[in-house]
């Protein structure tokens, strides 16, 4: 396997324009002759399917939900960044680029990030034109706010439902193309494998989740936009259905998996309340703009927050990071919360929580302003916890939220399998070791609206693809394997439920490959994951049959893939002997407890090649170069 990033040469400011000019074009009349598969209908997939349909390609779009509008992009709350500089506060494309490279702790590709910052500007225009109801000023122009880790106000938002509104914009554009006959939608359909013929991605095998039917779909190119793999942790802010199956099966067919250990722990989630807990709920980090984070100064202080006087509170972020205060990036804020809880100063029943307090903002701005900014979030918090955050501080704790790792892609978003493209959170490309707030929506839409329409055409125009149909032996063979996989899960008939395995796997990964990691723990975790995987394949109980709607069967297939990915995450974390961004190895920290990077030895993308079920994967390294933003220790003090 050879990694060719296809990064253009020349000045970064002109790189994307030059790359676009160098790309081959597909004649408008020929576009309809090409069949393109898009898996996933979120911001990346939905935007791609709609845009490719508009261009005239024959598009098939797949999602496991009952409607493309339910993709998990819908749950993003806070906002989307764009270098518009509408606030006249010193923002620019270069600054957004700079912040993103620095925020990613110098583990992202500079040229990709620069393109992302350039595209951010067009995304806002596109979304406004679609009717996305962004927040506005009284004069009718777009409003902005500052968002975790940024010192300029460049975040556009639609109350606390920005992801929902952006997704509905893409969904509506997609539905218009479905109506026009350019896109065929396959809801309640799950991709279970990728078909590679003559070294090129030529189609997928799916399971109809209602009838259980295994089906083959042929294409000239396959685009995966299936989101991240945060649910490997079981408890995460992801939707229950979010899974890694599409990218993991593609990995097993030859797509390199990059930086799997780069996972993001979000600092502001509602703490766990019991063993039955099925998921964690995020409280947008926009709350950190007006909320102050604190814990008692004394260990084991069981007084209610109102009984603790000002002088006995430790506003630890403001104390440790005076210039960024409560707005430090996510990885820094999460680790700081863990540190105070580890000291025994955590709050709530479990001691795993810190206060996010709005009392001062309510005094300064008035309750109505706070309500206008965060009303729906406060309501959601009260629904879940039964506590009123206008009167008592919220309790929050970090939780897994986003995965920076994903399938390796080149500058054109193509994986190591020609013809297989990967967009959005499913790829590894733009966020390095830590993603900044309000940048996920930006990347999904940039990839879907403004990158893939060009790079896909370039691939199709530069490759002569042979004619293939589902009768090809490769399709027959992969479909048979998928069928066998389904039957195998059903035939085990063991004693433990799918959820019990998933919960146990998640606990291992959270304990040893979560907010802090060390070599010993990671080695231990790898052993435990292997044992548990073995038990899964001999003792899981999947009731029902494969030929109808069977939610347990769907879950079992996904958990089976999480086992393998979880092991690779630990291996990747073990191999990376440094701390960077969300990857914090306890052995590598500064005297002040901050992440200690090792640029000399680890300034690379770790791309893992699958070598078979019982063979260790092979590590390939893509060295990273920094010509524009010079690596320095991130400091938010």
């Amino acid at each position, binding site marked *: 396997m050879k990694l060719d990033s296809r990064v253009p040469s020349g000045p970064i400011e002109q790189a994307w324009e030059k790359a676009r000019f160098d790309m081959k074009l597909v004649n408008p009349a020929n576009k309809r002759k090409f069949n393109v598969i898009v898996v996933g209908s979120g911001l990346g997939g939905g935007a791609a399917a709609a845009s490719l349909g508009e261009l005239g390609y024959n598009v098939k779009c797949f999602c496991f939900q009952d409607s493309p509008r339910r993709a998990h992009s819908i749950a993003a709350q806070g906002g989307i960044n764009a270098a518009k500089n509408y606030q006249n506060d010193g923002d620019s494309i270069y600054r957004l680029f700079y912040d993103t490279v620095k925020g990613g702790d110098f583990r992202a590709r500079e040229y990709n990030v620069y393109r992302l910052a350039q595209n951010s500007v067009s995304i806002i225009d596109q979304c406004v034109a679609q009717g996305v109801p962004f927040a506005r000023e009284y004069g009718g122009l777009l409003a902005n706010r500052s968002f975790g880790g940024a010192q300029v106000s460049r975040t556009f938002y639609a109350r606390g439902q920005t992801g929902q509104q952006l997704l509905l914009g893409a969904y509506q554009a997609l539905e218009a193309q479905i109506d026009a006959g350019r896109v065929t939608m396959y809801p309640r359909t799950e991709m279970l494998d990728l078909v590679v013929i003559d070294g090129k991605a030529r189609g997928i095998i799916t399971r109809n989740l209602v009838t259980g039917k295994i089906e083959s779909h042929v294409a000239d190119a396959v685009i995966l936009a299936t989101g991240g793999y945060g649910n490997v942790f079981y408890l995460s802010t992801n939707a229950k259905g979010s899974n890694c199956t599409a990218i993991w099966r593609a990995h097993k067919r030859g797509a390199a998996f990059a930086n799997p250990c780069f996972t993001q722990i979000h600092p502001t989630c509602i703490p766990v309340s019991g063993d039955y807990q099925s998921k964690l709920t*995020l409280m947008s980090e926009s709350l950190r703009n007006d909320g102050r984070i604190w814990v008692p100064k004394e260990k084991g202080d069981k007084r209610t927050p109102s009984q603790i006087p000002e002088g006995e509170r430790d506003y630890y972020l403001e104390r440790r990071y005076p210039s960024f205060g409560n707005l430090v990036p996510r990885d820094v804020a999460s680790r700081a919360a863990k540190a105070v809880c580890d000291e025994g100063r955590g709050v709530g029943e479990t001691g795993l929580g810190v206060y996010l307090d709005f009392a001062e903002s309510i005094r300064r701005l008035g309750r109505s302003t706070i309500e206008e900014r965060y009303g729906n979030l406060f309501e959601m918090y009260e629904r879940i916890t039964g506590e009123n955050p206008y009167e008592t501080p919220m309790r929050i704790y970090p939780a897994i939220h986003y995965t920076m790792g994903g399938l390796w892609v080149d500058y054109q978003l193509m994986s190591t399998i020609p013809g297989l493209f990967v967009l959005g959170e499913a790829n590894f490309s733009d966020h390095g070791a830590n993603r900044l707030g309000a940048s996920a929506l930006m990347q999904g839409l940039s990839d879907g609206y403004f990158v893939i329409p060009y790079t896909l055409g370039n691939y199709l125009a530069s490759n002569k693809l042979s004619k293939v149909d589902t009768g090809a032996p490769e399709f027959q063979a992969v479909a048979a394997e998928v069928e066998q996989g389904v039957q195998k899960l059903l035939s085990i008939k063991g004693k433990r439920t799918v959820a019990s395995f998933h919960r146990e796997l998640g606990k291992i990964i959270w304990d040893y490959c979560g907010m802090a990691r060390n070599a010993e723990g990671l080695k231990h975790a790898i052993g435990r994951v292997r044992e548990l995987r073995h038990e899964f394949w001999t003792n899981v109980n999947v009731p029902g049959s494969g030929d109808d709607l069977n939610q347990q069967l769907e879950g079992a297939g996904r958990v089976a893939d999480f086992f393998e990915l979880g092991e690779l995450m630990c291996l990747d974390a073990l191999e990376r002997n440094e701390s960077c961004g969300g990857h914090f190895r306890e052995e590598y920290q500064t005297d002040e407890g901050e992440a200690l990077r090792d640029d000399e030895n680890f300034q690379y993308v770790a791309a893992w090649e699958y070598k078979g079920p019982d063979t260790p994967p092979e590590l390939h390294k893509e060295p990273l170069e920094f010509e524009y933003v010079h690596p320095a220790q991130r400091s938010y003090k």
Partner: protein
Amino acid sequence: MNLTLHVWRQAKASAPGRMERYEAKDVSPDMSFLEMLDVVNEKLIADGKTPITFEHDCREGICGSCGFMINGVAHGPKSGTTVCQLHMRSFKDGDELYLEPWRAKAFPVLKDLMVDRNAFDRIIAAGGYITARTGSAPDGNAIPVPKASSDQAMDAAACIGCGACVAACPNASAALFSGAKISHLGLLPQGQAERERRALRMVAQVKAEQFGNCTNIGECEAVCPKHIPLAVIARMNRDYLKASWKDRGAVKQDESA
């Protein structure tokens, strides 16, 4: 607390269904309703029985996947709350709960509490969008939008497409759903060019899907987890009426194009 559940069980669309009784024991008030069902399902699996199928995904009240009737009320007793965000502290020990799927001709039951809501997608496909080819947009600040219009558009755009409005309506009308999209886009300057076509096409699709007519009962607004106001139906009716009267020929031509 301990609860008794009566749940609609139906193996597939073509099979007959029936209510089945289950006991939910040691339920914590901090559980969400769906977490309570998860626990019931784990026990059913352990006992060699078929778990209850219900639709769910984000469990944050935003994806719109979940929803069923609890004692005859769509999404259950708590106002402005989807079933996934409903917590067991809203119930008390000994409660007897009847869980049934959305009932509407346009929403056939697929299995147990899960229904097919693709009719909603087809209504959006008929006209619930603003045509703006990728790449063709002017600067985001080129068209100022009065804050009040933008806020009202956002109120309507908050719809999550769960279908509770249809389930609650004695006529199984989709007026609140279609009205929400027509209002969201019609309140914005960007949405004016297609405003009449949108109303005509979406309303026609609602009819084709065999949803019932709206008779202004208001059950939909009462159960809507996002508090979409009835005013959106009035806006839809106004747009539809205006479009039907005005230049009918031109719109028809456009439709056949």
